[in-house]
């Protein structure tokens, strides 16, 4: 005679197995929702925008001439001309009114004794009254090498000599 116990156990085993597989499938697929790095893409787009804006400012003004950025820094701009040229490039949008991008720029140069010295240059906060960079906002950094000629008008401690200086800009949305 065939026992009746086995069939019951089989059903339980099958049901339990299917439940476990279903659970495992759901769990695995739920985890994968969170894997793509969404913020990474936003950062990349912001970095591209900043790099583009600096590249456009770094186009020569006349054939064999200096670039807008070089002229600006050579003339000892206190940041207002840079702000006027750079800030609209970051914020202008066509679909939406404005993109709330903020920036803070600094200039790095090499000093014989102290190595690399970083001095703050200008920021959106000092022109628009927006909140300054706190360090907590997720920010990205873009930079551009600028040729500074001797007798430039930038204030000390940037030494008065022919040199390459690094203009670094931190960008964030705030």
């Amino acid at each position, binding site marked *: 005679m065939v026992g009746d116990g086995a069939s019951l156990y089989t059903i339980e085993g099958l*049901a339990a197995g299917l439940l476990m597989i279903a659970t495992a499938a759901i769990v695995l697929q739920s985890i994968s929702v969170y894997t793509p790095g969404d913020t990474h893409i936003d950062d990349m*787009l912001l970095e591209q925008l900043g790099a583009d804006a600096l*590249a*456009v400012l770094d186009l020569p003004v006349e*054939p064999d001439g200096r670039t807008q950025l070089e002229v600006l820094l050579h003339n000892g701009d206190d940041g207002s001309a840079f702000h006027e040229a750079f800030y609209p490039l970051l914020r202008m949008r066509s*679909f939406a009114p404005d993109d709330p991008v903020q920036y803070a720029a600094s200039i790095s140069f090499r000093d014989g004794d102290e190595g690399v010295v970083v001095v703050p240059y200008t920021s959106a906060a000092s022109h628009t009254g927006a909140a300054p960079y706190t360090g907590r906002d997720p920010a990205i950094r873009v930079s551009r090498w600028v040729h500074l000629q001797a007798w430039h008008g930038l204030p000390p401690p940037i030494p008065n000599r022919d040199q390459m200086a690094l203009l670094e800009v931190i960008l964030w949305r705030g």
Partner: protein
Amino acid sequence: MKDNAVVTFDFMIGFTIFIISFILVAAMIPHTLFSVQSSRIDFDAVAYRTGVILTEDPGMPASPVFPVWEQVSDPGDVIRIGLAVEQGSANILSKGKVDRFFEGGFFTYPDDHRRALLFGDYPYSCNVTLTMMDDHSIRSVGPPPPDLYGTVRRVVVVKEPSYLIVDGLVHSEFLVVENETPNQRFSVEVTMDQLLDRSVDPVFSIDPRTDLLQIEIRNFGEYLNVSAPHATLVQIIISRAGVPITYSAYSLWLDGEPATLPGELTDSLFFTLSPVPEPPWRSTDAIGITFVFDDDPPASLMTGTHLYDYQNATLPDPDKAILEVAVW
């Protein structure tokens, strides 16, 4: 015989069907979420790629006969739509390409854009907008984006074509000297090997094979014989290395009006030489453009040859602009 097993098998089949449907439904839920999540990332990636093609690539025509795609008359012959002036000149867009891309009637939205700009099997839609920084004018292709879309913004400059100005009040060297018979000819010489100097920054370079050449004669009255009310332009000779050739891709404006030959002028002449497919000039040729005036009566006192080179020609300052690409 007990009937337990029959019930058990019915139950087992029913329960299996239930569980399988349950798994199918349960598996679809995260998939739905996943597709929402990934499509935005995908849209951003496609928008980024489209932005790169538009701002960093000069595009590609199907046939090597055409140096640049904007000369192609059939949009199907454009393999890739890029707006950069040349290879390696990122962020510098060509005015001719921008006009061709945004003008209605050449590319058909969305077919040509999907084929030559967005690529991929998925039928993406796009909106490309160019906002000029100086006058805030907006040019756009494609419908406004829906709520969910991927976007990228690129900062670019739009390079305008060069022009050569001959001003009657400034350029007195083209006036015939006294007691000399005016020959009723004025020439402009375009030396290709000087213009194609690779050391010139792409933002300032002039290439007659792909760019418009514009010649403007202002204050022509200064070159006019006092006894004549107007001069008559009877012929424009276009030559390659001194040999006249047939070249009809030009436009002529006299005294501010579109004109054909022969035409009368008293004040100004505006001449545009357009590039053509299979340009007749090679990289070492000199292009000659000679304006011939009627010598009966000899009304024009203009003579000599002006050089179309980097010293004399003027390039308007390139306009900054924001190129915004939305993809969904």
